[in-house]
């Protein structure tokens, strides 16, 4: 797993209080990991902070799974 994926996973585990092995590529933040819409806003903010990037609102709406997040950040770097 890439360094980016590791760092994203750490943020997801911390913010959503879920087990690390639940955070698979296709794991949906809302459907599988118990997040609500406010949690996803906060997650995106945490990704921005961690990776020093800006994620526009329309892009953020498309980040629904762990895999989505990793791919967006890899592309942005």
């Amino acid at each position, binding site marked *: 797993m890439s360094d980016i994926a590791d760092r994203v996973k750490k943020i997801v585990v*911390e*913010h*959503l*209080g879920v087990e690390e092995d639940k955070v698979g590529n296709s794991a949906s933040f809302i459907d599988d990991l118990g997040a609500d819409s*406010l949690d996803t*806003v*906060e997650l995106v*903010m945490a990704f*921005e*902070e961690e990776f020093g990037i*800006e994620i526009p609102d329309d892009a953020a709406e498309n980040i629904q799974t762990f895999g989505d997040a990793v791919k967006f950040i890899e592309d942005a770097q």
Partner: protein
Amino acid sequence: MRRVVVTGLGLVTPLGCGVETTWSRLLEGRSGAGTITRFDASGLATTYACEVPFGDGADGSFNPDDWVAPKERRKIDEFIVYGLAAAQQAVEQAGWSDPAEAEKLRTGVMIGSGIGGLNSIAETACLIRDKGPRRVSPFFIPGSLINLISGQVSIRYGFKGPNHAVVTACSTGAHAIGDAARLIRDDDADVMLAGGAEAAISEIGIAGFNACKALSTKYGNAPEAASRPYDCDRDGFVMGEGAGVVVLEEYEHARARGATIYAEVIGYGLSGDAYHITAPSEDGDGAERSMRAALHKAGLEPGAIDYINAHGTSTMADVIELQAVERMLGEAAEKVTMSSTKSMTGHLLGAAGAIEAIFSVLAIRDQVAPPTINLDAPAVETPIDLAPNAKRDREINVALSNSFGFGGTNASVLFGKVA
């Protein structure tokens, strides 16, 4: 007329976490004051306060993880954490954690706060200044709003009755209990969680009250001696923090399920001073009318009162309240014990009325009046027993709890023993 009784109690105070911990330390006359540890207060006029003792939960310390999961705690200001902890204690003591669905529809929540998420607001303002508005947490607003204790408690337990929150400065807790009792009496609910919470021991909170010259400043070397209601060396209140929540219940409802009944809410009075934004009216007229209104609702004469938990903040206003009480009691003054438990807990602002209502209920349960500590040289003479530095074992059938707040808002709640 539907009667309202108290069937559950919950406390987080500077004396400890839990009702019995706080109560036993209160009867021992222990002070909860100390040098501020929460932040560096060395640059402020006041360097001490009554902080909730955080710890691992042992020996009466408050372990927030015992009450709110760490990932949820990040999303809410400390005043909500305190409120949730006190609410959970009260609900569990009342045996009301998981009633039937129809009962949940008839169970409401009315827990207020004086200033709510003051510290979160200050921190978020600094964050915007330093890093820009995009860094503001989506949980900032729902984590700071005063009515979000009531909201959080209702979500946690599924209580779908009236959901409300009082904001009347230092009268908040008393108004919440009195108003919630009326909701039950008026048949809007059968069970209500009611009380107040506060967490304003922060740089902005202390600086703000310092600016209005309300806080004690002269006891940096002896914080435990700083809160000294009625004493001639008092110089302002000592800020406290925490929460108090009671379960109120319709009398027949409580009887039918065999609940333990601690006391009855027999009267509740409210008044306004219409005088000054921070000072009480000098003649104590508002305080007196509030107390008389509570007695009137109960259909009692002043002579029925055994114990008064005073507002008594350790400010100049102590004497105004005392004189109002003397006028209200008349010849009955000599048989009444009145103490200020703020001498030990400090002033919990929006939570004060709630924790002091609970102390009044416990005074009835255990037939004992807690002391007023640090009362060494009374500022005035009074026929009323102020229980200086020692509790009083005595008959207590009726107890009155007074709360007066900035803006001239007064509340008095009267509790009676249930035979």
